[in-house]
């Protein structure tokens, strides 16, 4: 099997998984306590009104028909209307999505920029003071809750030192990045800690491999031995972790966006849960699940590129 067919197979795999996610989201929405009709109308509506709204929301039809209708809508990008905002859910999500994507993307970049060099230093100085220091600091980062780290950074860097804005999103790319730096850093710290530990372990595994000795025996520069022979093999193990972490990164965005008042989908999710805005919750769950699937697909593609044995 060559790489092309492998990739096609992997893409085909994603279609049934999206359908499955859709079904789960649909069922979950029906399992939530309370029902959307009383959420729209309140407790004092007449029976006639309840019947009218039930029909309007399509809830009088059988469950399989409702499911097909829901999935059909999803395929067309139609998620219904937000109960709280009274605008189409798709428009609401499209408005809020960029902030979250910038936030998670930026925090991933920060995490990689912190973790990769520090993991190398820690592994090369294993069990000596630089290693112990790096691991110690990250241990603290890993064991401190995200909202606490966020509040701490807010207080010190934004409120006292006035280096960053306290919250919000700003206008235009430059302001977006500036406003989102602190929340991204907050989100990045625990991610960087996980990444650093994994990569340090992978580097330690690879650095004693026979092929690294052989690379040295060829008289290559130390930089080339590390950057080409060690890093590439160590990354293979770590890349899959990055993909798996995208889910918790998005979960962490829910908290971080609330702490820093970022108008992203994470905060929208929290608001919608409090407002029992079922169409929005349903659509957001689906969108986030799709992003996690795409992240895993991207991981597999990167892994295939790094490791020629994948897909054989």
């Amino acid at each position, binding site marked *: 099997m060559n790489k092309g067919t492998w990739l096609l197979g992997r893409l085909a795999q994603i279609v049934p998984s999206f359908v499955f996610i859709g079904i789960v989201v649909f069922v979950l929405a029906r399992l939530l306590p309370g029902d959307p009709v009383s959420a729209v109308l309140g407790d004092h509506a007449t029976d006639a009104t309840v019947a009218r709204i039930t029909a309007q929301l399509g809830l009088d039809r059988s469950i399989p028909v409702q499911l097909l209708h829901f999935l059909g809508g999803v395929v067309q990008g139609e998620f219904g209307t937000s109960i709280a905002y009274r605008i189409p859910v798709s428009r609401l999500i499209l408005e809020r999505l960029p902030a979250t994507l910038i936030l998670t993307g930026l925090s991933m970049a920060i995490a990689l920029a912190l973790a990769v060099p520090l993991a190398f230093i820690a592994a090369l100085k294993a069990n000596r003071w630089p290693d112990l220091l790096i691991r110690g600091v990250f241990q603290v980062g890993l064991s401190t809750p995200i909202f606490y780290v966020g509040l701490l950074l807010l207080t010190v860097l934004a409120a006292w030192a006035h280096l960053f804005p306290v919250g919000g999103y700003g206008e235009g790319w430059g302001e977006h990045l500036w406003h989102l730096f602190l929340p991204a850093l907050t989100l990045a710290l625990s991610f960087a800690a996980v990444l650093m530990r994994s990569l340090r372990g992978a580097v330690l595994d690879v650095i*004693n*491999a*026979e*092929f690294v*000795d*052989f*690379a*040295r*025996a*060829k*008289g*290559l*520069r*130390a930089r*080339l031995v590390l950057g*080409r*022979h060690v890093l*590439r*093999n160590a990354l*293979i193990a770590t890349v899959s972790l990055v993909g798996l972490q995208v889910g918790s990164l998005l979960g962490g965005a829910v908290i971080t966006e609330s702490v820093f008042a970022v108008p992203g989908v994470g905060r929208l999710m929290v608001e919608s849960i409090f407002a029992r805005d079922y169409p929005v919750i349903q659509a957001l769950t689906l969108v986030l699940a799709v992003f996690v699937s795409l992240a895993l697909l991207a991981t597999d593609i990167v892994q295939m590129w*790094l*490791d*020629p*044995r994948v897909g*054989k």
Partner: protein
Amino acid sequence: MSLVVRDLRVVFDTPKGPVWAVDGVDLEVAPGAVLGLVGESGSGKSVTLRAIARLLHANATVSGEVLWEDEDVLAMPPDRLRRLRGAEIGIVFQEPMAALNPVLTIGLQIDESLEAHTELDTKGRRARALELLDLVGIAAGGARLGQYPHEFSGGMRQRAMIAIALASSPKLLLADDPTTALDVTIQDQILRLLLRLKAELGMGLVLVTHDLGVVAQTCERVAVMYAGRVCEAGPVASVFASPRHAYTQALLRAMPGEGARAGAKLVPIPGQAPRLDRPAQGCAFQPRCTVSESACETRRPSMETDGDRRFACYAEARL
């Protein structure tokens, strides 16, 4: 002499305490000569080889002298060491599957060696890489350059590793048991290849092996190692014909014979290799030796020289 090793010692620092893996080894290799370094697993032959190229890791302490064309290898600065490795001394490892980087093409693994040690441009390096594959007997080199190690068979991988080691025409090749991972017919092909290359390129060869048959077939001189020391050294023919160390004799008796010795009964060596974390006071081979005397237990025999033979055995006269 192109390579001279004097009183080489390697101590490994392990969580359970020091291990004296190499304990005072002397070796000499003349330009273009073939030296066999033979011994059983754990005798220190591979460690000796790696110590010569300074490839041991931080947990090893190396002392003694390694002279390459009168230059002290153990004192070389990093830049000089890098030029030595690859450009002047090539190294071939035991397991090509482990020694080749699984995620890089064979072509790149040859190319980076050429890039480090030659002035050739991209085109010149590719031509040289093809020439090298042809030299080690890999056909259709152009297609092979773009392939990864897992796409090669065991014998082809070892050929590829030899091609990499030869990339910048070293004057000496250190081969660490290069045939042990291969089946017998391929073993023979690889040995013939090494001998042909040695003759064609005029380079010296140090061949580490546990196989006396390989030594008999390929080497001019042999050094027999036991428990981190050389117990006997000399020209292969005379050492094999009349061993002057009890261990060499025992090894030869355990080996299926050819010619005059064909059909002789095989005698296994009793016991097992000694522990290197607790060095013996006397001769390390004494507990397994069938001809030992009381002095063997208490005092280590010193190396004696007789013409081109060297040996360290009290029982030498009675063998």
